[in-house]
């Protein structure tokens, strides 16, 4: 229940919902939101692990700090905080450095 249902100032629209997959699990997202927003809305804060096994979430939300790197549709090092979630997208936690997409 991370989504804000009521807001004294902002209009809360109900955008179209889409499905995406996180670590193989089907989750719901709103069209037009970032992967990071969709994950946090689903209660997921841990986006991956550093090379030294530290859990990693996102920090800046504007694509600058590279704390939010994830594997998206098989491609490593995707900045999940500025990449929009898409229907059917496969999102995975990245552990350490990314791997080459063959």
């Amino acid at each position: 229940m991370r989504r804000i249902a009521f807001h004294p100032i902002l209009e809360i629209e109900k955008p179209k919902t889409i499905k995406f997959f996180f670590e193989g699990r089907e989750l719901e997202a709103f069209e037009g939101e970032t992967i990071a927003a969709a994950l946090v809305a689903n209660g997921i804060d841990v986006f991956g692990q550093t090379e030294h096994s530290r859990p990693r979430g996102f920090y800046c939300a504007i694509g600058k700090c590279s704390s939010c790197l994830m594997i998206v549709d098989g491609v490593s090092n995707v900045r999940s905080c500025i990449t929009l979630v898409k229907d059917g997208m496969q999102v995975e936690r990245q552990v350490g450095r990314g791997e080459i997409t063959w």
Partner: protein
Amino acid sequence: MKNEYKVAIIGGGIVGCSIAYHLAKFGENDVVVFEKDYLSSGSTGRCAGGIRQQWSSPHNVLLAMRSVSLFEKLSQETGVDIEYKQGGYLVLSYDDQEAAQFEKNVQMQRELGLDVEILTPKDVKQRYPYIDVSGVKMATFCQKDGHANPHLANFAYARAAQKLGVHIMTHTKVMAVEVLPNGFELFTNRGKIGAKILINAAGPHSREIGNMVGVDLPTESYRHQIMVTEAVKNFFNPMAISFSGNFYMRQTKHGQFIMGQGDPEEKPGINNNVTYRFEREMAEKMCAIFPFLSKLRIVRHWSGHYNMSPDAQPIIGESTSVPSFYYAIGFSGHGFMLAPAVGEALAQMIIYGRTLHVDITELNLDRFEKGVVREKNVV
């Protein structure tokens, strides 16, 4: 501040620091190194860090082989891990004439004791299935070639030299040199300093330094651009290079791919800017040869300078017109890999009057009086 030294070296790149270290190692530690910026701020820190022995001229092969044997010991000798890796150099040829020359080169290299293989495109594909070998005529491979981290190797020599008593003065620019009857007076932004022996290891600025002393050194500096990708897990061991294909690339220990090419359009002069054309050309060319790069991101792109000599080979030795003025310049893009052997040889020349391991007399300035035979194995 001490204002009198036996030896003053201009240039805190790996060549200058290697000379300083070897001088101290052989007993002369009354040495100062002037670096106008920070250590490795010039060509050294901007290069890709390749270490190759496959050259087209015998003395380059010998010099490089000596360098490799010194690189092999460098981490242990200095206590600084220089990320040295003998992952081999894979030299790809896209040109029949070049391929024919390679066969001859390999024969010469083998005669000098270098273990080099000749590979067919099929062999290449078998060893490196992720390389697209379209257009490749043949390749040569030497496992003992490799790469290291240029900054760390530069620091390794600097720190080791300092431990032996050498003074390194960074952010100290030599602005003028006065030639005295038995030495030199250097005018720096930190004051005047005297030296009996002066060594020019100023890389891209070598000609300027020569002018200060009154010796015309026939070098020209050309910008070379280079770029690096984000890091991914390591899998790519060799330095891949092609003269006819005009590229080189390796994966660093950190996992990044570093790569570059030469640009025939480049005009001589110091230019630290970068062009997008370089990225565009590289992206197109490299993705065709190394398709796995296509989803990787470029994180940084910079430029450095090749200090070119007329025959693309270094100019090393003592000036005949100004005694006690030495130079190790004009490395034409290969100063990093030759620095250990050159530093050692020049130090030996100064201290013992001759070299003990590799003969460098052919690299003296007067060779240009006899005409120019250009080194071909250059990107």
